[in-house]
């Protein structure tokens, strides 16, 4: 992955950069297929890491008296 994408990666994955990425970031992404591919993988990775936030069942509260 090249420097312009590395530098903006965390902001981008956080969603803060959507539509407001630095010009260099967008320009590099449009021109570099390997960065675009790796970014797509890292976006998906962030999504499944965030799946650990979800609580599909039960609650995350300790029982009274814990």
């Amino acid at each position, binding site marked *: *992955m090249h420097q312009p994408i*590395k*530098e903006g*990666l*965390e902001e981008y994955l*956080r969603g803060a950069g959507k539509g407001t990425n630095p010009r260099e970031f967008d320009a590099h992404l449009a021109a570099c297929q390997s960065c675009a*591919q*790796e970014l*797509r*993988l*890292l976006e*998906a*990775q*962030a*999504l*499944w*890491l*965030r*799946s*650990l*936030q*979800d*609580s*599909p*069942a*039960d609650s*995350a*509260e*300790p*029982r009274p008296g*814990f």
Partner: protein
Amino acid sequence: MDHRNTDEAALVRRVQARDEMAFREIVEHYQAKVFSIIYGILRNHNDAEDIAQQVFAKIYFSIKNFDFRSSLLTWIYKITVNECYDYLRKKRVRKLVYESDFSEEDAQRMQNTESAIEQGLAVDTQLAQRDLVLKLLAKLSKEDRMLLLMKEVEGHSVEELSRMTGTNENTIKVKLFRARQKLLKAAQRLNRGGGQSGLGGAQSGIRL
């Protein structure tokens, strides 16, 4: 940020001097947080309560070594996550399943992870995929794992992580980037081991 001159640091010093009331304050202040971190990883109330007890015991006996280089929360977070992974490792060893072994079934589940999240598939499917994510995270160093969990699961920003760990923002970014790459590589190894899935290969169109 200087972690030595805060109210929290004063509380820690009292605990280091074996003030039981001060330790009780720490337990009351952090117990919900600790429980929620453990529950987020293990998804089991009884286990979470047992591990939480162990975490606070460890905090009590190790706090003399707390050196104020990070925030207390970061230090507690690290102990909590490590305790969960020790527990998972012991549990796996008991079942004679080793961390390095990914089954083909694992690979298949991994293949479907993103779509499962997006489409809100059955709870047990999501739980199985969570297990897989945890298994991959087990491949990382404790520090890498902690940073990724704090960033993506706890939702802390780079700036917050920098403050909490006493490390500058650029270093945090570099460490996160390396951790993400290691995790990708672990998933790609899983893909190769899993045979047909082609996981992680952009040309295959399969997304992680």
